[in-house]
């Protein structure tokens, strides 16, 4: 039974409080949507969840254990999709994907690079250098990474940006399949990616301009 929670998280960036006393919980097979206007801290929260940033206050727990103290085992469990697509333009599509699958350290038998390319309809581009990809294709290649090697927790930052309708559908079904396997997803997006959803509205935890609400104090 996997559970991913954050307690009383406070994050300060450049002497500005991004959010304070933020609490979230994601259970097995659940998707958490992060909502909020631009600049409200969705990406920051995802980087915090991934362990790239450290919270000033509060902790992030995986099955009740601090992710910072068990960073090595925790990093085994997650896939992170950021704004940048981490694609080397001189490598081919397949080389890019295979490299990240190898870096995950997952047993080769459990990797599915070919299948991931197939799912995101990139198979016919497999041997093309990545510099010829359009921005939507680059995004798809980046997303294929999360399917190429298994990990229970997906942290997705605007995964549907610059995707066409068909690809959003592929992403949606990938998330559904992941949920069915008991996977956890935290996603910052403006698209509806799965029917039932838990929503975390970050602007409730930011105290710029608005008076703090009761649950924040």
């Amino acid at each position: 039974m996997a559970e991913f929670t954050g307690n009383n998280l406070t994050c300060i960036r450049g002497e500005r409080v991004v959010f304070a006393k933020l609490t979230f919980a994601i259970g097995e097979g659940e998707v958490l949507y992060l909502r909020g206007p631009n600049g409200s801290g969705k990406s920051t929260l995802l980087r915090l969840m991934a362990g790239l940033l450290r919270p000033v206050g509060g902790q992030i727990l995986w099955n009740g254990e601090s992710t910072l103290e068990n960073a090595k085992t925790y990093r085994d469990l997650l896939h992170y999709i950021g704004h940048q697509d981490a694609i080397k333009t001189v490598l081919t599509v397949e080389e890019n994907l295979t490299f990240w699958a190898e870096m995950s350290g997952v047993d080769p038998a459990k990797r599915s690079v070919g299948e991931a390319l197939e799912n995101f309809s990139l198979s016919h581009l497999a041997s093309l250098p990545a510099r010829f990809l359009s921005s939507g294709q680059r995004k798809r290649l980046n997303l294929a990474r999360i399917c190429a090697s298994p990990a229970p927790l997906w942290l997705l930052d605007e995964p549907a940006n610059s995707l066409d309708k068909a690809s959003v559908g592929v992403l949606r079904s990938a998330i559904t399949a992941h949920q069915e396997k008991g996977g956890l997803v935290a996603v910052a997006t403006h698209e509806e990616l799965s029917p039932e959803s838990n929503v975390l509205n970050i602007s409730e935890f930011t105290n710029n301009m608005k008076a703090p609400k009761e649950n924040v104090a």
Partner: protein
Amino acid sequence: MNVFWKVFTSLIQREIRLAIRHGADSMMVVMFFVLVVVLFPLGVGPEPGILTRISAGVIWVAALLSAMLSMDRLFQTDFEDGSLDLLILTPQPLELLVLAKTIAHWLTTGLPLIIISPLLALLLNMETSGYGVLLAALALGTPTLSLIGTIGAALILGARRSGFLLSLLILPLFIPTLIFGVSAVDAALIDLPSKPQLLVLGGLLLASFALCPWASAAALRQAAE
């Protein structure tokens, strides 16, 4: 352990593949090395005696500058395209990945310098007795330069005018390598044993091998925040 090794080699492979496909980068370092050395006879005059006297120093200083020239891209591209975030998030220790990148960097820039150096020694009229020691000293010294350089390359991420900053940060740290590298060759040229200097160079290599990946990894984590 097996997983570590697999990840280690696949990162080295990727870096070498990138360097080959960006072939110009490695070539430029070698060309720069050659050009700097060729400038000296034009500047100090072509008397063979003077060139023989300064040959070891010129080759070492040129190697230092070329190593530095290639250094600022080491983590910069990964930082810009988001690969650095993902490298930090892999389950393997970042120190190990830094070491893999350093080895690949040395193979694609340090090694070509060593290979071309006898030719430059010939151009500078170096006595043949110095060639072997020059190669040995460069073989021990250039990996040290790559290792020390990673610290600078990691620290400058996100800075403006990073190339200049990098030289200010790491050139002073190259001084011990330069001193012992040159004096090893000079000793061989006057028929003195150069083993002590080579041993010191080996010591410097081992020390930076043990320390630099940790320092660079810490700087990289800082850069990703």
